[in-house]
C-alpha cells in the first residue's frame, strides 16, 4: 500500500519535473534575472584621431526668457587647460549693455524675466554680436559645478534674455 503510493508519487514527480524544468529554463532565458545585479562595464576611446584639439566639457541649449533667444552654449577645454565658452547657432535680440555671464541654474532670480537686485554671476564679457558663433574666455577660477548656467543678461534693465543650463558633455 505504502509502496504503491510512493511509486505513484515518484512517477508524478518525474512528470512534474519534465514540465517544470523546461518552463523554468525558458523563464530564465526570457528574463535573465541575474542581470539585475550583474553589470557590464565598457570604456572605449573617443573616435578622434587625437585629443590635441579643445574638447567640449559641458553643453546646453539656450531658451528665451525676456527676449527670444536660441542656440547652443558649450564649454571647451584646450590642451593647455584654458576653458572657453562657445555659442553656436546663436540668435538673440539686440539690446543695450548685453553681457554673457555665468550664474547658478538653481538661482531663484533666474526664474523671472527681470532680476530684482543684483544677479550672482561671473562676467564673461559684453555680447559680441546678437547673431552668430562666438567665443568667450572663462576666468581660471570659475567653478562650473556652482556656476552651471549661461545667461544672456542685459545689465541696464536686469533683463534675462536667455538661459542655458550646462550639462556634462
Amino acid at each position: 500500500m505504502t509502496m504503491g503510493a510512493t511509486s505513484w508519487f515518484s512517477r508524478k514527480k518525474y512528470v512534474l519535473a519534465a514540465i517544470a524544468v523546461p518552463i523554468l529554463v525558458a523563464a530564465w532565458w526570457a528574463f535573465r534575472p541575474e542581470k539585475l545585479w550583474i553589470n557590464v562595464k565598457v570604456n572605449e576611446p573617443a573616435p578622434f584621431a587625437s585629443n590635441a584639439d579643445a574638447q567640449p566639457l559641458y553643453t546646453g541649449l539656450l531658451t528665451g526668457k525676456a527676449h527670444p533667444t536660441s542656440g547652443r552654449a558649450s564649454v571647451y577645454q584646450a590642451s593647455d587647460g584654458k576653458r572657453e565658452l562657445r555659442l553656436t547657432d546663436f540668435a538673440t535680440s539686440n539690446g543695450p549693455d548685453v553681457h554673457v555671464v555665468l550664474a547658478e541654474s538653481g538661482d531663484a532670480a533666474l526664474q523671472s524675466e527681470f532680476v530684482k537686485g543684483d544677479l550672482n554671476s561671473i562676467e564673461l564679457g559684453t555680447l559680441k554680436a546678437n547673431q552668430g558663433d562666438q567665443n568667450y574666455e572663462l576666468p581660471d577660477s570659475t567653478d562650473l559645478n556652482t556656476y552651471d548656467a549661461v545667461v544672456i543678461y542685459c545689465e541696464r534693465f536686469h533683463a534675462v534674455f536667455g538661459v542655458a543650463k550646462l550639462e556634462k558633455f
Partner: protein
Amino acid sequence: MLPRIKLGFALLTLTLIFAWHSTANAADNATKTLETGTFHGKVHQTSGRATIYQQANGKLVLRLTNFKTSNGPDVHVILIAAKDADDDANFLKSATPRVELGKLKGNEGDQNYVIPKGTDLSTYQTVSIYCERFNANFGAAPLEKF
C-alpha cells in the same frame, strides 16, 4: 597679347584649384560633432549622453558617454524615426521605423557604435536603448544639433 592672356588664365585656374583643394582638405581632416542629446528613462533608470560624430572619412559614429542603464536580456542600441520616446514605448506596435546599431556592449561606460552608411539623421532623430525581447524602450535620447 593672346599667349599672355592664356598664361594668365592658366595661372588663375591653378590658383583656384589649389585654393579649393586646400579648403576641402582642411575641412575634411578632423572629426566633427554633429548632434548630441541626453538620455531619459525612469522605469529602467537610463542616463548619460549620446553624441554623433562624423569622422574624417565621412563615417558616422554614435558615442555614449557617462552612460548607465539597467542590464537586461537582448538589449540593443537603435535609432528611431521620432522626436522622442516614452519609457517602455513599443516600437513594434507603433511601427516606428528604426536603424539597428548593434547589441548594447555594456550597461555602463563609454561606448561607440557605427551608424550604417546612408542613414538620414534628419529622419532618425532619437537614440533608444531597446529591449528587443520584450519590445520595450529602456531610455531615449532626443538629438539636437551641436
